Structures are given as C-alpha cells and as structure tokens.
C-alpha cells in the first residue's frame, strides 16, 4: 500500500499546480480583461491625455495649492512598489515624536487654521502607505490654505470638497472619505477667481 503513495503525490502535485496555478489564474485574467478592463489594469486616471496615477493608489502632494495625502511609510512616501505601514507600536517613542512633528507641520501648512484637535487620520500613517483617501475633517482643514494659494473663494473650494466626499458605500459600509487625487484634479480644472497662475 505505502509504496504506491509516491506516484499520486508527484502526479497530483503537478496536475493541481497546472489547474490552480496556470489554468485558474489564466481564466480569471481573461475574464477580468474582457469584462473589467479598466479595473484589472489599475483604475488609471488621466489628465490632459496621459495617466497621472491610479484612483486607488495614493500619491504624494507637497505643493500648498493641492490637498495633501496622509503621511506614508511606503518607501520614501507613496512608493507603490514598497507598500507598508510604520509598524510602530502604541508605546513607541518614535511614533509619538513623529505625531508631534506631523502635527506642527500640519498647523503651519494650514495657516494656523488648526484650533483644537487634529483629525486622527491626518497625522498617522496608513497600513498600506498608499491610502488614496483622507477623511472629510482632514480635507476641510486644508480648504483655507488651498483657497488662499490658488486665489479661489474658500466656499468654492469647500463646495468641491463636499462634492468629492464619498459617503459610506451602499449607505452603510466603511467610512466617509475624500479621494485626494480626484479632488486635486478637480481643483486644477475648476474655474479660478483670478487669472494669476497657480503657484507651484
């Protein structure tokens, strides 16, 4: 009995490897490319005819005229080949110091608009380091700065933030969020109050 066990082990290893390792992903790839081509290839977003990013992958914004993404631990920040979080624990001194640094930076960046506390997503790093979203509270705190730098009316900027705030999916799932890339692209194509170019 036992000497006959070697053949099934070897043959089934190879057969199942072909079925689940080639045929199955192959079939899924073909179906995905047929029916969900945009999503299967990364949900790319274009501006002025060329891809500027993926709607699902966060990217770094540093200019004051744009809304900024959350801090990121992916590589040097939003490196989409090095996903990951800080993995710093709750009693980590390094994390506590980083939070202070981010908080100060945030207050300065936002024209001292910060009174009271900071939204919890604004100074913390996400798990993937590629979080495409910020919370509505986070976005609202950046409105004054963006409006001033762009010479826009802050109510117009606030209206854009509201329009780009996604509610919970299906009305219940997840949390409200603002996709930073989409919001910034909308800003770029929004009519400006003055004709001065956006300082970059």
């Amino acid at each position, binding site marked *: 009995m036992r000497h006959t066990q070697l053949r099934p082990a070897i043959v*089934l290893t190879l057969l199942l490897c072909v079925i689940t390792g080639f045929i199955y992903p192959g079939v899924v790839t073909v179906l995905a490319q047929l029916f969900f081509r945009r999503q299967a290839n990364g949900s790319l977003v274009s501006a002025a005819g060329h891809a500027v990013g993926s709607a699902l992958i966060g990217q770094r914004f540093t200019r004051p005229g744009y809304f900024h993404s959350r801090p990121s631990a992916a590589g040097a920040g939003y490196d989409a080949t090095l996903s990951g979080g800080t993995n710093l*624990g709750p009693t980590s001194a390094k994390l506590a110091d980083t939070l202070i640094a981010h908080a100060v930076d945030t207050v300065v960046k936002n024209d001292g608009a910060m009174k009271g506390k900071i939204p919890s997503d604004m100074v913390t790093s996400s798990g993937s380091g590629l979080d495409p979203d910020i919370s509505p509270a986070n976005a609202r705190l950046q409105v004054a700065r963006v409006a001033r730098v762009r010479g826009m009316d802050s109510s117009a900027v606030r209206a854009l933030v509201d329009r780009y705030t996604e509610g919970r999916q299906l009305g219940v799932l997840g949390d409200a969020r603002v996709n930073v890339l989409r919001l910034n692209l909308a800003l770029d194509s929004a009519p400006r109050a003055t004709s001065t170019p956006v300082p970059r």
Partner: protein
Amino acid sequence: MTGNGWLQIAIFCTAVLLITKPLGVYALRVYDGSMAWLRPVERIIYRASGVDAGDDQHWTDYAISRLIFSGATMLLTYAALRLQQALPFNPQGMPAVTGRQAFETAASFTTNTNWQSYSGETTMSYFSQMTQLTFHNFASAATGIALAMALIRGVVRRSAGRLGNFWVDLVRGTLYLLLPLSVMLALLVVQQGVIQNVSHYLAITTVEGARQVLAMGPVASQEAIKELGTNGGGFFNANSAHPFENPTPWTNLLEMVAIFAIPSALTYTYGRMARNQRHGWAIWSAMFILFLVGVTTVYRAESHGNPIHAARGVDVAASAANPGGNMEGKEVRFGIVNSALFATVTTATSCGAVNSMHDSFTPVGGMVPIINMQLGEVVFGGVGAGMYGMIVMIILTVFIAGLMVGRTPEYLGKKIQAREVQMAMLYVLVFAGEILVLSAIAAVTPAGLKGLNNAGPHGLSETLYAFTSTAANNGSAFAGLTGSTYFYNTLLGLNTLIGRFAMHVPMLALAGFLAEKKIAPESTGSFPVTSPLFVLLLISVILIVGALTFFPALSLGPIVEHFLMDAGRVF
C-alpha cells in the same frame, strides 16, 4: 464606537449566518461524492495519478498520503523559488529567492500559514505568485478540509476504522468547492478595482511631476483563494490593506465573509454527518460567542484610541467627518470598525490576511488577535483546521464533564478512553510547547532581539505574536519584526512545520481510534452535546486550555503595555 459601526458588524454576522447552511449542504455533497458534474475530469486525474478512488484508507495510510503530498509540494516550491530568475512570467526580472527565505516560504505556504518574511512586490515573480503561492493556497486549504472530513468520519462511522481517501478528498475539495467559489470571488473583487494582469510594472508621472511606479500582477486570482482558503498570504507586502488587494469597503466585506464562509459551513456539514444538526449549531454558537467577545474588545480598544497620541493633539473622538480612535496603520476607507473586525476575523481563523497593521494596534486591540490564535484557532478557525481543532476541544470537554459526574465519557455514542484523551492532549501540548519554548529562545538570544522593531513590552509582544502566528499556521504578524534573517527564517519555518504536521498525526490517530469504536445508543447518562450548558462548558474548556496556558506570557507583553500606555510611558 458608533451605531453605524455596530450595524456593519451585524451585517457581517448576518451574512455569515446566511451562507452557513447552503454552503454546508454543498460541502456535504462534495465530500460524500454525490456532487458529480466534474466526474469525467476527476476520472482523468485519478487515472493519471494512479489513485484508486474506491480505496478507503486506514488512518496511518491517510496520514502518510497527506505527509507525502505536502512534502512533494514543498519541494516543488523550494525549487521554483530558487530558480525564479530562469522561469517565465518575470517581467521585473526578480532574482532567485535566497535559500533560507525559499525554505521558510515553501514551509509556510505548504502549511497554510503564509507567513511572509519577504515583500511580494519586490521578491516574487508572477510565475512564483501564480504557480507556487496560488497553487499552495488551494492545496493547503483542500488538505485542511480533507483532514477535517477524515476526523468527522472517524467520529460518525461505526466500527469502520477507515477514514476515506485523502487523494479523492483533495481533488474533490479543489475542483468542486474551492475553484468555483474562487472564480466568483475573484471577478467580484476585480469589478471593484483589484488588479488582474501580467503587465510590466507601470511608471507614471504624478500630478506634481514625480515618478511613481505602480506594482502590477495577477492579484485577484490569488486574493480570492487567499481568503476562501484562510491562507492569508498577500500578493503585496501590505496585504489586504493595499488598495489593489482590497480597494473598497464592499471588497472588504466580501473578503471577510469569504474567510469565515467555509469554516462556518463545515459546522453545518458536521451536524448533518453526525445526524445531529443541533450539535452542529451548538458548535457554531460556541464559536460565534467567542468571536463576538473578541470583536467587541478590539473595536472598543481601537475606538478608544491611544492616550499618548491624544495627549499630542490627535482627535480620538469619532464623528461623521473624523474616523477618530487609533488610525495608525489603518486605512481611511475601512475606518476603525472594519479594521477591528478584519483583525478579529483573520486571527479567529487561520487566515492571517490583514487590512491594517496589527503592530500599531493598541495593546488590548493587538492582544485579542494573539489570544484568538492561542486558543488554537477554533473560533471558526482555518478551513478544516478549525473544525478538527474544535472536535479535539469537544473531546476534552466531554472528558472533563465525564470526570465531574463520574461516568465514562462518551461523545456521539462513542466511548472516550485513555488513548483518545492522550491524542487530544498531545495535540494541545505540542502547540503550547512550541510557542512558549521558541518565543523564550527569541526573547533571550541576541539574534532574536535584533529583529525587533519596538522596544519595551511591545518587543516581547512582537516575538510572541510571531511564534504564535506561525505555530497556529495563521501568518499574520506584528510586522515590524524583521523576519528576514537566518534566525527567524529558520525558526519560524520549522515552527510552521511542527504546528501543522506534529499536530496532524495525533489528530488523525484520534480519528482512527474513534473510527474503530462501536456506537452505543444514547442513554439518559449520555452528556447532551446540544444544550446551552454544553456550549458554556465548551467555551470554558477552550478558554482554560488556551488562555491560562498563555496568560503569563501575555501579562509580560500586551497587558503590562496597556497599563504603561495609560500611564503615558513611551519606549
């Protein structure tokens, strides 16, 4: 904690409850052979591999088949990873995986652990991801369910001594159960934005003119089986926190339900096979109660947030616009509740996928995942593994109940005697022993301490988490630990192997011993295994065996850290 948060938890629980019966019935038909629409394919496979589908195996043969198969798959993967640079589907030109890492990865995926000391997007070619890691996701899951079926047959068959045929169970589980569900789930998540291609990584110029390279790959096909098979090995380093693995709250719900689906369904299948459906639901209830306690604890701790961070200006109070709580390592689209829920689901089972970084959880929020794993992952548990782990706990429960009233314990008409209890205890002791001994070694050796990312008690939690996760074949991590060293690759790799095989042998022996026994008719003296009293007793035994064994270690890690955090201490 918000009303909406509880509603989301309730939606998840309802979904799991609703699929338990239909999927349980389906699994029953798959494994008793009445599901036959792929019979021609099955026949070709059996003929090619020389399997006699009618051969009903003794437990020793079943165990040998199981071990040889895993050995063969592990060798194949080791070889494929070492030769990666010479194989196709490698647009990024990934070099060969180092020997120690290839060993650990092969061991880890063979055992359904999927612990990853590498970062997927910089280490694995598409060939390795598809033909090795995706393949293992199927093979190890199908093996797990096969073993659960073997143990169930041992319990319910009369004086047979035979447990079914491993090869047939393996093939049927893969073809009828795992593959169709995976294709469906993969397409559902692609629709939401999970990628599925074999393209070169995509370099784009961002809005501000910087260069960003987007990692690509056949992600959805692996994502689906990663959850359904409670495997948990991410395509990317960030696992299900990565937007290309888990882009929306809807995919997040689908993935969580997929993790619980088969383990939950198997309780129903067991009820049917044992001809005692109420016993199946009693087991489900015990699992569900433990799950609810876990998720409530994590949700509470993470919503409450971290006083050290609150003192530095972070607003931990949730509102409609602010997620609040402890958002370090969490994604905005999931928020606190879905991160807490996912962390509980993934460690209650042997999945180990993560949608947030457990290392950055509050001490109590991070302790629940550790406890979940230390209970032996019987709270729904791994596919198959949760069911057989739970049956071992039930054997101990009826044994203890028997001792309390001074009767020979029996379970579903079978007498539980010395041999059975010895095997059950061996199963429990191997698990506890490997975790505690190996964590202790890591805690006192320089090589072990060098891998830590955090100081203070959190450092101990990191090593304890690592050895618990690998022994329990979970694979999630306090990911700050640098696992990519000789010390950790070797020790953790061995730990996954011990945690799987050294527990399977006593478990199959237990199945074999039970299968030989006659079934005595139930009498007034039989301990009822359908009552709330039974559920309570079962939960107590699980907690006493699991929690008390590990309490001293936990008190030096997360528990002491909790009090230090409240006192504002940092390290």
